[in-house]
């Protein structure tokens, strides 16, 4: 396994005193807390921070760690193995590892400090604890959210054996999503969380729905928004245009004299629910990059014909 540089993780020097370590930990903990940080590896970083702080805040653990660091307990392959006969003082005490998430500490940590106290739950058989609730963010395509459908997810579920030792197993679930879920919506799957201890009830699984970005549509509450490019003549003369919606194409009537930015509403073509949303269509008048000579001459004619029109009247000219 890899040797973890706890000083580097906490961004402090080897000579840093306890208060510098605490300050740095607090600062980084705020930065990488998974509930605050949007960085992809925030959860991993936060766990690493907790582990590094657990060691460096404790004088005994820190000096044991420093010892190993100086010994250079690195193998030829660059990996780490504690020296033969290594035993940490923390391994003897029940309350050895006290961090809030000590059950998530790495193999590296456990190889040095053992897993007493942290990783072991009460092994008393009459001890009953409800299983942990689990959380899972589920990203759906808009179409999937609209139609509903089946998705397979894999969860890491904590499980404790008869002695109370906690390990993680992968659990695969096939989940049928009802039609018409909305972003941010939470769904409970009762009893699909971690198993209970001592015959207690299992926890629940909470799914949070997220929408993957769509190439054409955006979501505004229950409404679907589409920007629709139209030609200047379609805008001027009006037209009936085929428009994509989440449930197939529909014909949309563009009124005569439409402008860029005008909004049209297709009723009931938003996200479906008890009261479905609408699809909002924002018009965008689009010109070809180049015109033919004939077209240019038609535009010149148009310019003469409409010479009284001042599109900048609102600018006070």
């Amino acid at each position, binding site marked *: 396994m890899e040797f973890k540089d706890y000083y580097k993780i906490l961004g402090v020097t080897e000579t840093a005193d306890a208060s510098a370590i605490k300050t740095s930990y*607090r600062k980084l*903990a*705020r930065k990488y*807390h*998974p*509930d*605050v940080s949007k960085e992809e590896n925030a959860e991993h970083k*936060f766990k690493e921070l*907790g582990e590094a702080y657990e060691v460096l805040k404790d004088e005994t653990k820190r000096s044991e760690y420093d010892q190993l660091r100086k010994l250079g307990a690195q193998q030829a392959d660059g990996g780490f193995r504690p020296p033969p006969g290594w035993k940490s003082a923390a391994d003897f005490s029940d309350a050895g590892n006290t961090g*809030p998430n000590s059950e998530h500490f790495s193999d590296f940590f456990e190889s040095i400090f053992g897993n007493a106290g942290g990783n072991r739950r009460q092994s008393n058989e009459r001890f009953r604890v*409800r299983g942990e*609730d689990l*959380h899972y963010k589920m990203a759906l395509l808009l179409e999937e959210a609209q139609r509903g459908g*089946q998705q*397979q997810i894999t969860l890491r579920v904590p499980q404790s054996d008869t002695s109370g030792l906690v390990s993680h197993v992968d659990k*695969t*679930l*096939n*989940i*049928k*999503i*009802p039609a*018409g*879920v909305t972003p941010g*919506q*939470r*769904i*409970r*799957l*009762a009893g*699909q969380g971690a198993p209970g201890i001592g015959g207690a009830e299992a*926890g629940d699984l*909470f*799914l*949070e729905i997220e929408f993957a*970005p769509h190439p054409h549509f*955006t*979501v*505004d509450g229950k409404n679907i*928004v589409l*920007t629709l490019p139209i030609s200047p003549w379609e805008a001027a003369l009006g037209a009936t245009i085929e428009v994509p919606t989440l449930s197939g194409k529909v014909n949309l009537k563009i009124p005569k004299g439409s402008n860029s930015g005008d909004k049209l509403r297709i009723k009931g073509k938003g996200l479906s629910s008890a009261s479905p949303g609408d699809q909002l269509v*924002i018009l*965008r008048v689009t010109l070809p990059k180049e015109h033919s000579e004939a077209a240019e001459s038609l535009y010149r004619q148009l310019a003469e014909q409409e010479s009284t029109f001042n599109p900048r009247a609102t600018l006070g000219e």
Partner: protein
Amino acid sequence: MSTPTIHIADIEHTAALFSLSEICERCGVKTEIIVEMVEYGIVAPVTQSLTAESHAVHAQHSWQFNLDALIRLYRAQRLRRDLELNLPGLALSLELMDQVDTLKQQITTLRHELSKHRDE
């Protein structure tokens, strides 16, 4: 390995309600903490009949929380524990984080709109 069974994510479960003691058990906190969190407006129990009585202390045992409130309490509890926040600080943090989320969402939508109005 056997074929995994299909679990139906029943939308009705969204309407699940949790009592004060259930919330405490799940989040692993004492009742007083949840009561204080409610007093700070971090979460609110679902409003039943709005009688003066339901605001009285003895009505706490009839409090019911919805799924959103439970998940907010989980988040609040993690922040309180990991960052050693006090309750006013926690309430402020959660409010600001909500605002950031809303703003980020608006930015995403506006960016998307804007990209369509630029030269393709």
